[in-house]
């Protein structure tokens, strides 16, 4: 048993450039806050600086991806494979979207708090560590940096009691989940003497998984299950999603979920490739429960935000189904579906944020009735999002679902596939009424949608997201090839 190695070799620290640059950006925003934190102007400035600081990080990702990739396998702390860089790019895109949506939102809600953007950046750096971790310790650190920032963000609207409730709930459950995860890491270390994912994989290559290893795997699954809000570890999600400021709900539903799934994919494929017999039934069970419960409960929601919260549980189920095969196809389906879901959800939450007047708890089907009459583009974008979430052909959501079904079909896993399509049908029962209300009903009041106007930065975010969802929905070949290529770089992927 060798001592725990937490050194990061020099060439690997270069590989951390995206995360480091992002943290520097966050600190610049924090420093700025010390002097300028009083007016809406200051808040906006912090937002734009935060957005700008994504750029060097994105450049670093691009440079590394083009030049510096090599297969992971050495027990480095972070992965150096294409899968990580694709993950980072996705997280950066989600962060950019969140910041763009927040710019107008915070002003509308009267929240003057430039530190908000620093927290978003810290959360993003946490997600990047989490998604790229090759070592359980880094994974845990990333998870905590991400989670603690998001706890604060969830309760950011201090005047709103639901926001406070969300923050407290998320914090308590999050702490609980972290404990599970940490215990799982400890047991896995006990079983293998290593925290590096690939090393764990090598040491657990025997025919039977030792008891400690099984326990460790189970606890890791439970801990990650909380983070990605898979049934039965989902109870916190609806209240937290509902109470948080809407752009943060978007960040939780997309960024946190994406980082969680990408990390989970690495844990399963790199650390436990030989224990597929153990984790596949568990993943299948979580997936089935999430698909069924998330979609059924979403049917009965009045508030659109809660509806999207439950539907995101359903989507977690689809993503778990994509993880089930543990193959290259499965990983690429995970990546594709995450991209589709992230783009669509961000846009949907962005639109939802401007539909609510005052508190957006009140956004129901009635409040979007006749939207197309007054705000045709908004109605179009919202409907495109709903159809993509439903997985309708012509949208990226369909390509993602097709990828998952193909990965399952290749492994002869039919139960999950059948449940996936049946629950997709159920989901039409709550996505379609949104389209219906927007197009087929009359506005309830003469001034119904006067305030429903996307601020300019949000137009960019929603516009780009919807355009990508539709464009890649029709011409997915490039995205698919890229996803397959990057998925092939993960060490344990069959």
């Amino acid at each position, binding site marked *: 048993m060798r001592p725990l190695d937490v050194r990061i070799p020099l060439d690997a620290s270069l590989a951390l450039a995206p995360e480091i640059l992002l943290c520097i950006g966050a600190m610049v925003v924090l420093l700025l806050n010390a002097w300028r934190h009083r007016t809406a102007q200051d808040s906006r400035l912090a937002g734009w600086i935060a957005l700008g600081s994504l750029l060097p990080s994105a450049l670093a990702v691009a440079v590394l991806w083009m030049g510096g990739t090599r297969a992971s396998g050495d027990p480095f702390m972070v992965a150096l494979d294409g899968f990580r860089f694709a993950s980072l790019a996705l997280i950066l895109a989600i962060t950019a979207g969140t910041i763009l949506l927040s710019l107008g939102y915070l002003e509308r809600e009267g929240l003057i708090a430039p530190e908000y953007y620093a927290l978003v950046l810290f959360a993003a750096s946490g997600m990047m560590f989490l998604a790229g971790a090759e070592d359980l310790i880094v994974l845990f650190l990333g998870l905590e940096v991400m989670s603690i920032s998001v706890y604060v963000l969830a309760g950011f609207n201090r005047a709103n009691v639901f926001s406070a409730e969300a923050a407290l709930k998320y914090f308590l459950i999050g702490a609980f989940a972290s404990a599970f995860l940490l215990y799982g890491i400890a047991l896995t270390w006990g079983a293998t003497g290593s925290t590096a994912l690939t090393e764990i994989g090598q040491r657990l290559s025997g025919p039977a998984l030792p008891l400690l290893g099984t326990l460790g795997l189970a606890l890791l699954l439970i801990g990650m299950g909380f983070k990605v809000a898979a049934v039965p570890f989902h109870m916190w999600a609806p209240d937290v999603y509902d109470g948080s400021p809407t752009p943060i709900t978007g960040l939780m539903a997309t960024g946190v979920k994406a980082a969680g799934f990408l990390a989970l994919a690495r844990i399963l494929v790199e650390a436990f490739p030989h224990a597929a017999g153990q984790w596949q039934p568990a993943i299948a069970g979580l997936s089935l429960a999430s698909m069924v419960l998330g979609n059924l409960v979403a049917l009965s929601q009045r508030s659109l935000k809660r509806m999207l919260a439950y539907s995101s549980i359903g989507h977690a189920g689809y993503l778990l189904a994509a993880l089930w095969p543990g193959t290259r196809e499965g990983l690429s389906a995970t990546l594709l579906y995450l991209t589709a879901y992230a783009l669509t959800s961000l846009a949907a939450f962005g639109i939802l944020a401007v539909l609510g007047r005052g508190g957006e708890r009140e956004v129901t089907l009635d409040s979007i009735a006749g939207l197309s009459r007054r705000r045709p583009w908004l109605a179009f974008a919202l409907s495109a999002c709903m159809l993509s979430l439903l997985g309708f052909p*012509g949208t990226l959501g369909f390509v993602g679902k097709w990828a998952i079904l193909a990965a399952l079909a290749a492994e002869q896993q039919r139960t999950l596939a059948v449940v996936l399509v049946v629950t997709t049908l159920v989901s039409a*029962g709550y996505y379609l009424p949104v389209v219906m209300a927007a197009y087929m009903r009359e506005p309830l009041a003469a001034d119904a949608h006067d305030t429903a106007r996307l601020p300019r930065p949000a137009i960019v975010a929603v516009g780009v997201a919807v355009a990508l969802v539709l464009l890649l929905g029709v011409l997915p070949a490039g995205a*698919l*090839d890229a996803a397959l290529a990057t998925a092939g770089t993960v060490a344990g992927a069959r």
Partner: protein
Amino acid sequence: MAQLLSGLGYRQWILHALLLVPLLGVVPILLGRPAAAKRTALVVSLVEFVLSLGLWWALDTSPGTLQLNFSVPWIPAWGISYAVGIDAISMTMVLLTTLLMPLCVLGSWSYIKTRERGYYALLLTLLTGILGVFVATDLFLFYVFWEVMLIPMYFIIGIWGGRNRLYAAIKFFLFTLAGSLLMLLAIIVFAWKVYGATGTLSFAYAHLLEHREAAGSLAPWLFAAFGLAFAIKVPVFPLHTWLPDAHVEAPTAGSVLLASVLLKLGTYGFIRFAVPFFPGVALAPPVSALVVALAVIGIVYGALVAMVQPDIKKLVAYSSVSHLGFVMLGIWAATTQSLQGALMVMIGHGFSTGALFFLVGMLYERRHTREIAAFGGIAKVVPVFSLIFTVVALSSIGLPGLNGFIGEFLVLLGSFRVHPWATGIATTGVIFAAAYLLWALQRIIFNRLDKPENESLGDLNRRELLVMLPLLAGIVWLGLYPAPVLRRIEPAAVVYVRTVRGDYDAMRLSALAPERRR
């Protein structure tokens, strides 16, 4: 004609042009003035019709196989291509669709008064979707068109429909989606099965058809998934409950397209995909007995329910359930004659039911009611309307000399050897059809003119005549001289029978008919 067309390179571009022209037409409609939308839509749909007309001459229908095949890779990683092709079966459907579309635009001329740009843009998008389903020869592409077509129809019903439109729209959408999602899964599983057996991942129709044996023990499940999707669309009893709602609530053009074309997508799906892919399952005695029984129940049930409808539009809607039962019977009897008959019913029903829906819509525009009891004796007030209505109703009944007769007769003739009992019962459907339509005719057009509101009804105007004349011409032409159509679809029918029955059975059954072999 054929020379002229080949000089234009017609065979190279026609299928792509048919899919592209309506979509291009959407642009000027959305950018132009609302009042100009219908004119643009009319021009585009007429151009489309004229373009498609060339298929009649350009297509070599004698081999009975898919022609004008074209394929380019679309999503290579999954073996998906943009692949199109056409045979006589899809050609008749394409021509029917492109003929009806300008008529639908004309029929909506004064009916649609709100949000016209959206309406006509959706109508043209629907045209592309429908034609795409008929010409796609890659199952992914087919599925995309199959689903995308739903959206325009959903909006047409939901925005411009009647009082109960929201319910009808979502019911239509959910029913169709329920079937098609399982079909999606079946397509993927089937393709991967074939991939496992051949090492080639492809969604090309010909490839899957050639290696259909690879489905192995999964074939019953795959057939069930395909079959459910198509059966809902047809609709086969007892999956028909969405149909009366959708047909009645849709605006006139929507009802026409639903009945004349969209229902045929279901039967087309059976002919093209479900039965040829899994003939061993489809024609196995228990499955075959079930489908034939449901078809016959549909024929009789649809007719009986039509008889008691107080609403004309509902009556016509239920008559579709009955007519489509004949098509299903013809497909499952799987003889050359029965399939030719099924195709003729598909075409004939497109003309006569389309015409009936137009006529009902014209009545509704005048009186804003569709209650049969609200009319009576209007033959004196609107003689032209009454004459046309009578002719169309007679053709729907299946009077010899009009288009309804030949198809149902061929179906009954071709099915009798295979399913004598079922055919016997199905024959009563023809009698019931006479009953409900003649009775309706009597109550609407004849009887006494006892409602003062009806005394001032205006007869058909020129635009309405323009809508009806092509349909009437088709009804009479197909009734008196169906030979050109029959000749074109016969080889395709032979190919179908051979594909699903194997060569031996096909020869045995073809021998029943006096064949005109080349």
